[in-house]
């Protein structure tokens, strides 16, 4: 859920909030220093030395899945369009179990038979195709830069709101802090800071939800107030059309199988048999953490409808305004640190997969190997982060544009080739390459035409949905047409992983 915050937050520079935020950054730094001492190889840097446990995997995946959007943009969207905004997070009850059946076991077992460190590694091995590996890496790299830029901008906005340092300083302070532990400790630092950050996000969300219920006299009180003023707001689609809401469900449900910053964490699990409880832990953690997303948006709408609050100037003010008016400052400080935590954990994951795509997958696709992967991994991390921060600093609509297509690009390029390809032996190399190319072209062309205002899809139609279903059909069709060719052959060890 890496949709991101792109508008300014209200000033939050109060001593307690700043103190909590400083304490939070100090703990993140301490974890980074600890992880740095344990990072000695490229395996440590990219897949945490394949040594993490179930709880670490689940909480780190949860933290990487949720960006600041879950705490700021999401509640703002609920406030402005009602229940329809919930369709973005509605598939959560299904997606982690689906991901476990479809990807978790196979990804983790691939790391048993081969030295895998990236998602494109799995695609390359499945289809015996450096081209498929390289093409998927290019798609990941493009999406990562866009995603990172929006998230770094969001981090800058949060830091500016808490410390009053200005947006540009906020962007660079946030980038440098995240870079510091990511470059030194790699994904090892990332997953353990994610565990801290994820726990903080869950705790903050539950506490805020208690205040949500208190502010509106329970959920029934909130609903009654809203129904009296605007019944359609609590309709199943809210202010959206049914097609738009269901498109959210389609894209965020199926697209969850193609999010490399989450999927590649399966490689890191120490014991594959611990996956048994992964869906339960991950789904529960996400569910708890998303209480704030739904609760704050509805509560603020009820408070405004009941005359207890003036209408918001911007929907994204819903969380900050609610926290400052209805919760203790200490909790507000925790939540704002939680927002920074959500963004940093997502950015850190993007740094890792982007660096791996740049210095591992693309060279492999070109028939080369980088000598010192640990060293060049660190250099690539810095390079990608600087580019993302510069793009974020440029700001404007370009950043929002880059962020919007990230999810769709991941979904349309990776879901067919990876998620279906690892579970269907009839998938072929040509099918995989065609579907990745289709996802790339359809997403980039439609999003660019929309950005340039040359062509805009009708309301309710999601470009991510169109590109996802197009790449799915191309994958299935081309695989069927090329089913008897050389590209349908699977290596015995990979075949074994697919059959178990």
């Amino acid at each position, binding site marked *: 859920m890496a949709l991101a915050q792109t508008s300014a937050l209200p000033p939050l520079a109060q001593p307690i909030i700043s103190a909590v935020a400083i304490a939070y950054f100090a703990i993140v730094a301490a974890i980074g220093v600890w992880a740095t001492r344990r990072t000695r190889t490229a395996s440590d840097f990219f897949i945490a030395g394949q040594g993490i446990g179930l709880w670490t995997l689940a909480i780190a995946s949860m933290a990487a899945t949720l960006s600041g959007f879950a705490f700021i943009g999401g509640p703002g969207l609920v406030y402005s369009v009602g*229940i329809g905004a*919930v369709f973005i997070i*509605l598939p959560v*009850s*299904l997606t982690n*179990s*689906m991901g476990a*059946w*479809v*990807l978790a*076991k196979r990804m983790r*077992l691939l790391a048993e038979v*081969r030295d895998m460190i990236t998602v494109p590694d799995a695609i390359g091995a499945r289809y015996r195709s450096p081209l498929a590996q390289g093409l998927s890496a290019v798609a990941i790299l493009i999406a990562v830069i866009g995603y990172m830029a929006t998230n770094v901008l969001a981090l800058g906005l949060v830091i500016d709101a808490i410390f009053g340092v200005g947006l540009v300083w906020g962007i660079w302070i946030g980038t440098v802090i995240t870079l510091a532990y990511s470059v030194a400790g790699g994904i090892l630092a990332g997953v353990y800071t994610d565990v801290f950050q994820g726990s903080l996000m869950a705790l903050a969300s539950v506490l805020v939800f208690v205040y949500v219920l208190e502010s509106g006299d329970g*959920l*029934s009180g*909130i*609903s009654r107030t809203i*129904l*009296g003023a605007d*019944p*359609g707001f*609590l*309709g*199943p689609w809210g202010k959206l059309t*049914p*097609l738009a809401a*269901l*498109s959210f469900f*389609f894209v965020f*449900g*199926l697209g969850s199988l193609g999010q490399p910053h989450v999927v590649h964490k399966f490689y890191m699990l120490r014991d*594959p048999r611990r*996956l*048994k409880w992964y*869906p*339960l832990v991950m*789904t*529960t953690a996400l*569910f708890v953490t998303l209480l704030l997303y739904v609760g704050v948006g509805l509560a603020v709408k009820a408070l405004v409808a009941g005359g207890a609050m003036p209408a918001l100037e911007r929907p994204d003010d819903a969380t900050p305004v609610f926290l400052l008016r209805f919760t203790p400052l200490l909790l507000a400080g925790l939540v704002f640190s939680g927002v920074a935590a959500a963004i940093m954990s997502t950015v850190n994951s993007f740094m890792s997969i982007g660096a791996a795509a740049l210095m591992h997958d693309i060279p492999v696709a070109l028939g080369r190997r980088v000598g010192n992967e640990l060293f060049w991994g660190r250099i690539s991390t810095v390079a990608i982060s600087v580019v993302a921060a510069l793009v974020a600093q440029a700001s404007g609509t370009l950043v929002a544009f880059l962020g919007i297509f990230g999810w769709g690009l991941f979904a349309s390029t990776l879901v067919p080739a990876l*998620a*279906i390809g690892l*579970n*269907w032996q*009839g998938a072929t190399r040509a099918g995989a390459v065609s579907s990745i190319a289709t996802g790339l072209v359809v997403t980039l062309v439609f999003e660019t035409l929309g950005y340039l205002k040359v062509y805009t*899809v*009708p309301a*309710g*139609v999601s470009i991510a*949905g*169109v590109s996802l*279903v*197009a790449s*799915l*059909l191309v994958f*299935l069709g081309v695989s069927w047409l090329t089913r008897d060719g050389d590209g349908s052959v699977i290596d015995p*060890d990979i075949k*074994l992983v*697919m*059959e*178990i």
Partner: protein
Amino acid sequence: MTRSIALGALVLSSLAVAAAYVAAIVSGSAPPWAVWALMIGTSTIMLAIMVLGAGRSGSGVGKLAVPFGAMFAVLLVGFGAVLVMPDESATSALWFGLPPRAAVVLYGIGVLPLFVLPIAYALTFDSLTLSEEDLERVRAARRKP
């Protein structure tokens, strides 16, 4: 057989989703049937992919057929119900604090599967997903490339 059916369902449901989007793009707004096509297509794609993932070579999904069927029913009945139930009003009854259609969406589709699918995954993990013997076979494959 199970996997072939799942694959067929995946193809048909993808076509249904594509048809919904094409109709909306061509006509400028979604015709009523497009919403049903997107709803049924999305639910079926999710079920088909889960069956493909859970099914093992040469066998079906075993006991998982029950939770998978239940999940599919929840999605179809839940989304179908909100498409045909009456609109909300200021005096709508509340189900656990929400108007009926919102309650079906949030509690039915958003919460109910949480109590079914992860539990089903855990309970069938040893027999249907990954046993110690499976793991040993995979590790042996690495030792003898």
